[in-house]
């Protein structure tokens, strides 16, 4: 068992945390301003907000939760199942859109 991978023995310089912390602030502020100034086109705004959220989540998981320093066996075991959630989201959203379309199409008033 490699020693450097046994958790509880990592030593992270505090500087790393401060940088990540700062990045989180900046990204949150950026998302906020995207919304505040209502940046157009809308798809770009939505894409950026989603992308920033994902980056923030990755930062938190990687550095604050130390996922980056864990052995890949854990990392993959935690990250891969999340794909199944993406599948769920695709289909619930597809269903929502479909129902909205049906209502628009048949009842004429959304």
């Amino acid at each position, binding site marked *: 068992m490699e020693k450097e991978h046994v958790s509880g023995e990592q030593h992270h310089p505090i500087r790393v945390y401060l940088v990540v912390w700062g990045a989180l602030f900046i990204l949150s502020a950026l998302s906020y301003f995207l919304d505040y100034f209502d940046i157009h086109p809308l798809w770009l705004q939505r894409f950026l907000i989603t992308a920033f959220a994902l980056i923030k989540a990755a930062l938190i998981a990687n550095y604050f939760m130390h996922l980056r320093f864990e052995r890949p066996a854990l990392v993959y075991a935690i990250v891969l199942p999340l794909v199944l959630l993406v599948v769920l989201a695709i289909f619930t959203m597809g269903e929502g859109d479909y*129902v909205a379309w049906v209502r628009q*199409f*048949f*009842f004429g*008033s959304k």
Partner: protein
Amino acid sequence: MQGILLAIVLVLLVIGAVVLTMSGALWLPTLASNWGAIDNMLVITLIVTGIAFVVLNLILAYIVFRYRARDGQKAAFFAENHRLERNLILVTALGIIVMLGPGLFVYSEFIHPPQNALVIEVLGQQWRWSFRYPGTDGKLGRTDPKLFAQNAVGIDITDPVAQDDVVVHGPLHLPLNRPIIIKLRSKDVLHSFYVPEFRAKMDAVPGMVTRLWFTPTKTGTFDLLCAELCGTAHFQMRSKVIVESPEEFERWLQAQPTVAQTIKK
């Protein structure tokens, strides 16, 4: 003893299943719509799965008969055979492709109704069915679930297209050999439009419209059932479907009062 008995029971099971299937006593009711393709798919699936059923159960029966514990018998040791495993997987995959492949094409047909079809609206509510036909203009008037507060079928009575629509609560009359699109609505909970002889089935969902289509190919009277649990009297939510010649159908439709005549503004 147990082994022989189990083998006999399994063989009897296979024989019973085959006889029961062949006898046709418990088979689909006579088809009365264009969905012969669905029947064919059921037959294909039945053949594929039937072969698997018979073969696997007979093998099991043979095993329990042949390899039941006896004095001096010792089990053979083998734990793997990659070639055999791969071949079995290939055979299974082939069976599945044979079964599903054509089914997907039929399904594609099922969800793409023809253009020239007669559109009839079916409204489900606890616990009865109502039907709406387009009148002389061939179009159904606008509906909205919010309008159930105003009239029982939720039609927009200010819509000019709706004036000549015909609403009936009695049996559903259908013309022979003409594609029908059923637009399903529900007033309260989930229902399901189900006529066993037509094969087609679809849930009615409140707040939206679902569709299915078929072409009646036999005259006669059929039961219309509800196939989605919809509360206490679910089992009594029934109506009749009367398939008749196009002329008779027209005559019947002309005789019905229109929305303009029945619902006051």
